[in-house]
Structure formats: structure tokens, C-alpha cells
């Protein structure tokens, strides 16, 4: 167990290091930074949906909340270390409250979807209507449809004048992504993570075994929101402006599409889906022959119809079929499992 964990961490570090070094040779770091941020956002939904079975239609709400919190806090405080932390905390607390309301009320699938969607819409409408000068938090004006520009961007902790931008910012985001990935991996390997998967598989069984399902789902939901909030804060730093568009339905839809295309129930899938589709969108934006939205929609429909499990599981099963040696003991074991199944069935 310990050994496999070490191996997993090593593989992650080696692959991530390789990618961080290799990708800037192919794509500009400015684009790569936002791809990583989207990857992190996709990863946050991948965690709660793929491993917790919570389909949240409003992950964009936490993303936007993180971005807005960072912008407002940075204007008021004037440096970036504390605002980053606040931008993670505020979405997490919001998710704790929202999650407690939903999960203790035993809302599931569609109803959960509606509520998260509605909350996103409320935030969107509210922020959109805050153009007037009376909407002020501290010294930061909310700005309504125009958003908030001109806040302090990321700086070296303790030195507000040493800005981190350009290539350096790319490396910061990449390291953050790897850190989040490792932390989530550790979480999933812990008993909390395995129980979360158990809840996804069968909620009634887990609650009969004595686990507090509502509390665990709420906490997992909050962790996902914290990651989305971090992604939002990083996005605010990258774009140097936050707008209500961050809360929009389209943004929420895109996050769900990333997870589906990349592969649910895998850690790497949503990241790959997010970065890949965001890059595709970027590349398609360079031409005007076919509308961008049309292709995004077509991809989603085709994936749901023909590859509902997503890219990463499909590729890995293809890999196993074509390359993996089938060790005799494993074949034997599989046969035994099958026979046992037949005896019971």
C-alpha cells in the first residue's frame, strides 16, 4: 500500500515535470496558464462528480466566487497572499452552507442540479445588477456588468511590489495544479475518499453501515468548491479583470462537458478534457468558417452517444487490451470470480 502510494506520487511528479518542461516549447505560456487553470476547474468537478456522485450544475458559481473574492480582497488589502487564502475559504464556506442545506434535505440528482443551477443564476443576476456606486465592499466597487478591473495581481509573499507574471506565473500555476492533484490523490486514498466512492456507489448501504452520508457529501462538496475557488483566484490573476460572465450558465456547461469528454471517475480525465477542449476552442476561435459553439455542442452529443465513459477510460482500456500481458494468475482469478458470480446468481 505504502509502496504503491510512493510509486503513484513519483509517477505524477515525473510526468508533471516532463509536461511542465515540454509544453512551453509547443504553446505560449500565456495560453498554457489558462489551460492549467481550466484544468484545475475541471478537476474540482471531476472530484465531486466522478468520486462523490454529486452532479453540480453550478461549479462556475464557486469559480466566480473565488475570482470575485480575490479581486475584492486584493483591492482592500493591497497584496496577494491573504486574498488567495480568502478566495479559497469563501467558496468553501459557501459550499458548506449550500451543501448542508441540500444533503441534509436528501435532495438527489435532478433536484440537486436545479438548486445548484439556480444558485449560480442568482449570483449572476445579482452581480450583474451591482453597477451602481452603492454596491461597495470596503474600497472595491462591484461594477455590475463591467466587472472589477485593476486589482493587485499575484506577488511574492511579503513583498507587494514583486509581481509574479508571464513565464513565472505559468510555473506557479503548474506547481499549484500538481500540489492540488497530489493532495486530492492522498484524499482519495484515505478512508474518507474510499467512503466517498462507496457513497457514490450505494448511498443507502453506506448509511446503513453507520456512516453519516450527508456530512461526508457536504465536506466533499466544500473541498471541490475550495479547488474551484483557487482556480477562480488564479484566473482573476491571469485575466486581471473579473466579470459576471464567470458565473454564467455557459461556463457551468463547459465544466460538465470537460468532465464527460475527459472521463469521469478518473483523476486525470477532467484535467485533460478541460485543457484539451479549451485549447480546441482557442484554435477554432482563429477561424470563422464554422461556429465555435456548434462544434462544442456536437462534441458533447457525440461523446454522450458513443463514448459515454470519456477519453481516459477508453484509452486506458484500449491500452490494456492491446499491450498488457495477461498474467496467468490474473486470468485464473478472473475465472474464479466469474464462477463464483454464476453460483450466486
Amino acid at each position: 500500500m505504502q509502496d504503491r502510494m510512493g510509486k503513484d506520487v513519483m509517477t505524477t511528479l515525473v510526468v508533471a515535470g516532463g509536461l511542465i518542461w515540454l509544453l512551453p516549447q509547443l504553446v505560449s505560456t500565456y495560453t498554457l496558464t489558462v489551460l492549467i487553470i481550466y484544468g484545475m476547474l475541471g478537476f474540482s468537478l471531476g472530484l465531486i462528480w466522478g468520486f462523490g456522485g454529486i452532479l453540480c450544475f453550478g461549479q462556475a458559481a464557486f469559480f466566480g466566487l473565488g475570482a470575485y473574492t480575490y479581486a475584492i480582497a486584493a483591492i482592500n488589502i493591497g497584496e496577494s497572499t491573504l486574498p488567495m487564502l480568502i478566495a479559497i475559504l469563501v467558496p468553501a464556506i459557501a459550499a458548506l452552507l449550500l451543501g448542508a442545506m441540500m444533503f441534509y434535505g436528501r435532495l438527489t440528482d435532478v433536484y440537486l442540479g436545479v438548486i445548484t443551477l439556480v444558485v449560480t443564476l442568482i449570483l449572476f443576476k445579482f452581480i450583474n445588477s451591482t453597477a451602481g456606486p452603492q454596491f461597495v465592499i470596503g474600497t472595491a466597487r462591484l461594477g455590475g456588468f463591467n466587472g472589477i478591473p485593476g486589482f493587485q495581481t499575484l506577488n511574492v509573499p511579503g513583498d507587494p511590489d514583486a509581481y509574479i507574471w508571464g513565464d513565472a506565473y505559468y510555473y506557479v500555476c503548474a506547481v499549484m495544479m500538481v500540489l492540488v492533484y497530489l493532495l486530492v490523490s492522498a484524499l482519495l486514498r484515505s478512508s474518507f475518499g474510499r467512503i466517498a466512492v462507496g457513497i457514490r456507489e450505494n448511498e443507502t448501504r453506506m448509511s446503513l453501515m453507520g456512516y453519516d452520508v450527508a456530512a461526508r457529501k457536504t465536506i466533499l462538496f466544500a473541498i471541490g468548491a475550495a479547488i474551484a475557488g483557487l482556480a477562480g483566484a488564479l484566473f482573476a490573476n491571469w485575466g486581471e479583470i473579473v466579470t459576471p460572465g464567470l458565473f454564467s450558465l455557459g461556463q457551468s456547461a463547459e465544466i460538465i462537458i470537460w468532465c464527460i469528454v475527459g472521463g469521469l471517475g478518473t483523476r486525470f480525465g477532467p484535467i485533460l478534457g478541460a485543457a484539451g477542449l479549451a485549447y480546441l476552442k482557442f484554435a477554432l476561435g482563429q477561424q470563422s468558417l464554422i461556429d465555435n459553439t456548434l462544434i462544442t455542442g456536437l462534441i458533447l452529443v457525440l461523446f454522450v452517444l458513443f463514448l459515454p465513459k470519456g477519453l481516459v477510460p477508453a484509452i486506458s482500456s484500449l491500452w490494456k487490451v492491446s499491450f498488457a500481458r495477461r498474467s496467468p494468475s490474473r486470468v485464473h482469478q478472473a475465472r474464479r470470480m466469474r464462477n463464483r458470480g454464476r453460483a450466486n446468481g
Partner: protein
Amino acid sequence: MDLSIVILVEMLYAVASLVLISAGLAVVFGMMKVINLAHGEFMMMGGYATITAVNLGANVFVAMLVVAPITVGLIGLVVERLVIRHLYGRLVDTMLATWGLSLFFIGVATMIFGNTTTGISTPIPGFSVGDYQINGYNFFIILVAIALVVGMLVILKSTRAGLIARGTMQRSDIAAALGYSPDRIYMATFFCGSALSGLAGAVLAPLVGLVPTSGGAYIAKAFITVIAGGPSLVAGLLSSAGLFGLVNQIFTFAISPVIGDVALLVAAVVLLRLLPQGVTGKFFKGKL
């Protein structure tokens, strides 16, 4: 006195437009348990069908009440054959696939009509009540909504087709054993649902400037109304549309339209928390 008449008409109008917006989705979700997130785009296409037909010289009422529903119904038919029928019984998958369809249709509409606002003028002039001006077209929308609800009740309750449809929705295997093909009934139901969406989009088209992304404004409201309504088709639709329309207009008149919209959404969250199965999951049980 005059103000109270205006407010009454506005409230009826708010409820009627919610009924219109949600009817198509209610048929598709309530009867087939398919959540059609492309519903808003079906409405958008209904609007474009109307405008195109009017520009080609058709009478505006013919365009709204005949051309648009049939056009959108046929598009719905194609969608059902190509995509939806492979996904019956997989709630989340249908949601995602129809979301993809909605993006697809937005893209198609952008390529055909361009990303600009189009519209037609309202065919019915306004009139004044005392010091206030009322949009005469609001009455038309209220009338259409009433006709729609009555029509749905009559068809579902007292025609053979309605009986077969309801039976199939409850137990498709028994319906199949009795010699009705569930496949074709689902197809027909989806056609009706799409046609209703098209009708709603067409009737509302003169009131809004139409852009390819117009559908997004409707889908959330429709989705919320239908889910909050619960399992009964007509009773659920009426009760939740009535409730939300009322809340929306009270807060709109008391404070501002934005607060009205927010109040509607908050009411939906509270309602779903208290009655997770929707209004008709608790009250009016067993009604249509």
C-alpha cells in the same frame, strides 16, 4: 383602482408566460422523464421560424400558431430519432446530450441568422386604463396559455390518443403487450413537446429582440417551473407557474425587476428544499 387592474393583468401575464415557457418541457419531462435542456433553443427556433415566415409574407398569426410549431416539431422529430431515443431511461445522459444539442443549435442559428438582434412588432396595439398603458398583446398571451392548458387537459383526459400516451408513460411494457408501439408513442410525444416549445417561442417572439442565444433566458425558468411542479403534468405546471409568477410580480412591483427574478429563484430553492418531490408530489396527488 387603475393600478390594481394593471397589477392584476401583469400578474396574470407573468403566470401565463411561465405556463407557455414551461409547457413543452413539462410534456417531455413529465411524460417521458427526458430533461430537454435544448428546450430554450427550440423556443428560439420557433421565434426565428415566425420571423422568417412573416418576412416571407405570411400572416403573423398563421406564422406564430401554425408555421412555428410545425417547423420546430419536425426538428424535434429528427432530434428524437437521431439522439434522444438511444438515451431513454438515462436521465443524466439525456441532460448532457440535450445540452450539447442546445449549443449546436445556437451555433447553427448564429451561422444562418448572424449574431444580431431581429424582431417583429407586436400585432395588437396597446390601450390605456386610466393613467396607465397596457400592452394589448399581454391579453393574447394569457388567452394562448389558457387555450393551451385546456387543450392539454382535454387531449390527455378524454381522447383515445391521450389515454394511450398516459398508459405508455406509466407502463410501456404493458402498452407494448396490448399492441401499441412505445417507440412510436415516444416519438409522437416528443413531437408534441417540441411543437409546444416552438409555439411558446413564436408567441413570445414579438416581445423580445431575438438573438441565437435567446433560449438561455428561458431554459432556467422552464426547468425550475417543471421540476418544482412535480409529477402531475397540468396541475404541477399550473401550481408552480402560479406560485412563481405571483412571487416574481409582487417583488417586481415592490422593489425592482431584478429583485423579482432573484425572488423567483430563491422561492424555487426554498420550495424544493421543503417539497423535494415538487408541489404535486405532496398535494393534488394522482391528478393530471
